């Protein structure tokens, strides 16, 4: 006779979710210990998409290494590049022209919108609704078109360079962004109508995947995940960079700490991103889009750290320089890694369906976790 399903006498068994699984949105591997449908323990296994980006950066110059970072959190490519550019600028002590700062922040916020769009669609798909995914992609497509026109790329933009941005914005840029923003407000209302208000959806999300404020802090969670648990950690607000200090926007904080709170935080963040873009788009100052820098950049000996708020949370770039043209050591502090480490805390005791709903609200991008 063949052996039928290994399990302990108490009926506890393990299943492997991933590395090829529709819910993990990438090559994440979770080993889940189950008792029937109830989850006892989750162990994330990483390493399937490790490309040693940090090591690679050590042999690339300060101009070159930025391009590799687009491949970390590919949904926040602009923001990753922004963090690296800021860190190098900190070392070089370059003053970035106002025009470049405005463009950078607008691009960051557009990226955040595009990223949250994709998250929203994938999130709805995780809980079983397919249609929102296509609605989300309709808007994301417009953003991608704007990106393509200005940066020449749709996913790995590589637009930010030390000292500013690579090229000036497209002449149509302002008009297109304004057009998009004007239509976009109704779209958020549509999302709320389609998904947020749905009774089944709310039942799936409320009271599920609870993360307490203490746990959020001790696991080092950041971004919407931490803010949904009541941790005020928006880098744009706490440690403003570029023109973020001058724009008006709210830091969205929820205190319930469940999946629905994380969902709401992201939805409201989209509204805030729209608000930021609205403030900036009409006031892009004239001037240079790039500061004058040397052809070969050399950072002085020392350690430099810069953090930014990506769509997923706090991204830290830590450069150790020996004074040469390439970094001696680079370390990225990625938001997804810390957020994923709290998954066991959130999903323990829930059902398999809860795990998927919780994982959806973490907004994991695996290449970001596994660099």
């Amino acid at each position: 006779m063949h052996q039928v399903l290994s399990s302990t006498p108490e009926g506890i068994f393990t299943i492997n979710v991933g590395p090829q699984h529709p819910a993990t949105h990438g090559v994440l591997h979770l080993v889940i210990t189950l008792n029937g449908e109830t989850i006892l323990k989750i162990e994330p296994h990483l390493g399937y998409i490790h490309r040693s980006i940090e090591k690679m950066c050590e042999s690339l110059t300060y101009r070159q290494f930025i391009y590799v970072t687009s491949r970390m959190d590919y949904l926040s490519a602009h923001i990753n590049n922004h963090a690296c550019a800021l860190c190098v600028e900190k070392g070089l002590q370059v003053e970035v022209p106002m025009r470049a700062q405005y463009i950078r922040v607008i691009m960051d916020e557009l990226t955040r919108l595009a990223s949250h769009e994709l998250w929203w669609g994938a999130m709805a798909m995780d809980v079983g609704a397919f249609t929102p995914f296509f609605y989300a992609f309709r808007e994301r497509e417009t953003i991608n078109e704007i990106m393509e026109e200005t940066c020449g790329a749709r996913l790995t933009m590589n637009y930010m360079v030390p000292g500013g941005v690579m090229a000036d914005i497209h002449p149509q840029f302002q008009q297109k962004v304004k057009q998009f923003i004007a239509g976009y407000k109704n779209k958020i209302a549509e999302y709320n109508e389609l998904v947020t208000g749905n009774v089944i959806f709310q039942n799936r999300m409320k009271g599920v995947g609870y993360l307490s404020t203490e746990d959020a802090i001790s696991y080092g969670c950041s971004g919407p995940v931490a803010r949904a648990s009541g941790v005020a950690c928006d880098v744009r607000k706490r440690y403003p960079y570029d023109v973020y200090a001058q724009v008006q926007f709210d830091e969205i904080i929820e205190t319930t700490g469940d999946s629905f709170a994380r969902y709401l935080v992201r939805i409201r963040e989209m509204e805030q991103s729209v608000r930021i873009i609205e403030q900036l788009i009409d006031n892009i100052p004239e001037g240079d889009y790039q500061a004058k820098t040397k052809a070969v950049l050399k950072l002085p000996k020392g350690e430099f750290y810069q953090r930014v708020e990506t769509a997923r949370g706090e991204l830290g770039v830590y450069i150790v320089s020996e004074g040469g043209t390439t970094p001696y050591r680079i370390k990225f502090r990625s938001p997804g890694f810390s957020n994923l480490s709290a998954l066991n805390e959130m999903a323990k005791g829930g059902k398999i369906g809860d795990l998927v709903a919780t994982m959806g609200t973490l907004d994991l991008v695996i290449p970001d976790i596994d660099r």
Partner: protein
Amino acid sequence: MLNTISFEAIKTAVQQWLNMHWGPHLAFIAECILIGLLVIVFFAVLGLLLVFMERKVSAVMQIRLGPNRVGPKGWLQTSADTLKLMLKEGLTPDGADKFLFNLAPFLIMIAAMLIMVPIAFARNFQIWDINIGVLYISSIASISVIAILMAGWSSNNKYALLGAMRSGAQIISYELSAGVAVITMVMLTQSLSIQDIILSQQNGWWIFKGHIPAIIAFIIFMIAATAETNRAPFDLAEAESELTAGFHTEYSGMKFALFFLAEYINVFIVCAVAAILFFGGWMPFHIGNWEGFNHIMDYIPSSIWFLGKTFCLIFLIMWFRWTFPRLRIDQLLNLEWKYLLPISLANLLLMTIIVVLKWYL
């Protein structure tokens, strides 16, 4: 003119021809074979049609075009897909219980085929008007859960087993309220025979003249039917974001296609039953004493009436699928045991009162 080419006329003509040329026994056997072939052909056509319909409906809801390359407007897409599935290798995993594993897809198809027996497709066009028609349908429909459990268990795969256990719990639970909803309507018609149920709606469909209990029964039946056919928002048995493909994770090629087909056939069947119970099956739409209007309605062939109603309900079920998120397993069972079942029992009581007091005419 229209009456001469109705299904009823064709049936009678074939019957007469067979009886004229062959003996009664031989004619009966020939009829059985003919019916069997017809059911298989009908299944194939229905499967292709419903899959195509689902893809087009989902495309409209998801602001895209859907299949439009193979054949005119993509009509041959599903045929091409079926051909592909036929050519694929039907893999049987090493650790699987081979006998049960290979039996399950056929069992689910056989169950679906058997349900066709009492369904009336047009006026006097029915394979067999059993006097326990509705009961027969509910009981045969339960066989499919055995096939699903069989598939899940014999696959020797944890995802498949989880899916099968979910499906078992779900179908057995929702059969109760579906059954009670059917009984509610049987109270009105006072007969289990499909023919009698349809004929009792000659001067108005039950959804209109059955008062509020009929409407409640209809809603409950549709919810339970969606759950019984394992379709979203109750598609926990295959919940692809949780269990990859649930009970048919290990199936490939034509064996997978049979499960896939059975899902669509079951959708057709539950919608056909709903059309018969609540919307008068092939009975045309009549309004009281509007002779002219009723006359025009009578000119539409009865088969069109039946299929039209059924496909409207199928569209409704597809609409559910492409709109709602999925429930969680405990919420699913709560919905049935805490809400639907008590409501349908109370509804049955209400209907009994209405029938006893003869308020329904």
